[in-house]
């Protein structure tokens, strides 16, 4: 993502693994299938003279829009937006696709570093690094890194947090 004038802060330097796009597309497909089943059930089982006749064509139309956005658009936008960086002093991420969220946590205030791998993530060889602090809101989550990178980053952060930790609260 090129830096645009309205951005409040600078963007982190590094982008995610390209496999993340595949994972997001898969998630979009699953979501579409789930909603598709619900919409099909509605169209098939609610009698034609039902309460709101508009819904019979509105719901399938909404489903089609959702499918295009979730499978064809959102994964690529997300990939362009999502960035992360670990500097000398802090862990920094940018997430979101429409609303963007930049999160910065200093290494001295890190309490725990978690690496998690969901089922889909394992298929794509990805992992998520979560950097937790004393605050419930101050959590840096780097989604979808290559698994070995994720483990290296987590180890490095945990080791450095040990060295520079002050009170951590």
């Amino acid at each position, binding site marked *: 993502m090129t830096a645009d004038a309205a951005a409040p802060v600078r963007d982190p330097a590094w982008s995610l693994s390209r496999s993340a796009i595949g994972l997001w597309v898969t998630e979009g497909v699953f979501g579409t299938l789930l909603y598709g089943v619900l919409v099909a059930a509605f169209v098939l089982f609610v009698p034609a003279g039902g309460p709101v006749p508009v819904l019979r064509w509105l719901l399938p139309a909404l489903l089609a829009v959702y499918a295009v956005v979730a499978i064809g658009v959102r994964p690529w936008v997300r990939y362009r937006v999502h960035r992360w960086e670990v500097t000398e002093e802090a862990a920094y991420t940018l997430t979101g696709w429409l609303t963007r969220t*930049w999160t*910065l946590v200093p290494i001295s205030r890190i309490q725990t570093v978690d690496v998690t791998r969901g089922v889909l993530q394992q298929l794509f060889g990805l992992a998520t690094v979560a950097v937790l602090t004393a*605050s419930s809101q101050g959590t840096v989550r780097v989604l979808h890194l290559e698994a070995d990178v994720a483990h290296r980053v987590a180890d490095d952060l945990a080791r450095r947090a040990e060295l520079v930790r002050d009170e951590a609260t």
Partner: protein
Amino acid sequence: MGEVTAPGTQPRRTSPRVVLVHTATFRQARQLVPLLIPIAAVTGFDDGLATVVVLAVAVTALSLAAAALSWWRFGYADGPTAVVVTRGLLARSVRTVPNDRIRGVEVEVPPMHRLLGLVRVRVDAAAGSVGTNEEELVVDGVPRAEGDRLRARLLARRPAGAPEGERTAEEPAEEEIARFDNRWLLYAPLVGSYLVVPVAAVGTLFRLVEELPDAIVPDVPGPDPADPRVLVAALVAAVPLLALAAVVGAAVVNWRYRLVRRGGSLVAVRGLLTRRHTELEVDRIRGGTLSEGLGMRWVRATRVNALVTGLGQANRRGQLLPLGPRTEAVALLARLVEDPGPLTAHPPAALRRRLVRALGTGLAVTALGAWAAAALGWWWAPVAGAVLTVLGVPMGIGRYRALGHMAGPRSLSVRSGWLVREQAVLQRRAVVGWEVRQSPLQRRAGLATVVACVGAGSGGYAAVDMAAADVPGFTAAASSGTWAATLSARAG
């Protein structure tokens, strides 16, 4: 319970007198009530007085047995490094809280306990991965002297191996920081939380009356509720009654409130029926909040809460001034955190956003109302929409006026909210992270929301809709150390 882990960690019992308290209040037997109701429903209440007496005796006996059992199975030990509480009727549970995880101790004296010379001690452990219900240890029903000993000992942080049973040398000198003035009780009718109590009580009463069998409720020929004069009279009578109930409620909770500084901790004592004694460590206080509801702002009344790291339920425990004039509240907070100075207002675009939102809601309701008027003949619906739209203007302006942020040399402050306006004043070292959010609409307006992440209170305090260009400057100025400079454009 025979095992001895270290000298001085023999499990202690609570006072047997607590069995009396718990029998009278049905503390343990309360869990059996859902079981009893179907039984009672099956057997029926028709047999008159004898059944009621038998039932009452049975419930009391059950309650006594349950209270005695749980007293017998309960033990606690304040060892050199940790507090251990053992309990459970069938399944034993042992909870160990290391002394350095203890964040606060509260000594509470409910009326029944006071009669029997007992206290209840609540120990707050650092909030962590455990659920909110697990956060505290409760030792219910120890003699008052033992309660004081426990409190002094748990907060003294002695080095491991200090001799057991030795009293703290002497209580350090006290310095009074705040004292409740009974005139402040007059603010209570304008405070939402005190008004809610009488309203809820009335609601419960109505539900109870409705659930009673019809035969019991006497059929009183009341005035016709459809008569508008009756309605007006009821409203006129209800307002002073509600106000009075709010004042009484506030008095019961806050009676003879005192906040003193004793050595390294702040001690708050309050309550008419239940006397509460809460202790907070000054070292763990990271700042405070001033909150003012809509009604409180009229009379310039404010409530002060301390933000304490690792303390769950900060709202109840951290209360420093339950209710008082604004000047008093600001002076009190200034003793804990340096005032960063007057707040910087947010750009006009933030005002536009507030107005668009308030007016948009009003207009949407008006449009829906117009449809309802045309289709269903609800003439009042578009009128309500119009009123809402007109009210939206002062509300939008009020919400904008509440916004502000400031970074001082040692502290920072953010403010927002309209129904309840909350200003948080934080020490710079309290900030453990920054979160910057920008929605597409905010991006077009050149705004952003900045959240200071804090390991205390609600976890984050937001400067809503500040100018996007000011974000790097504010975050760098408001956090300790140089790490926040990461957010500003890279140098080189």
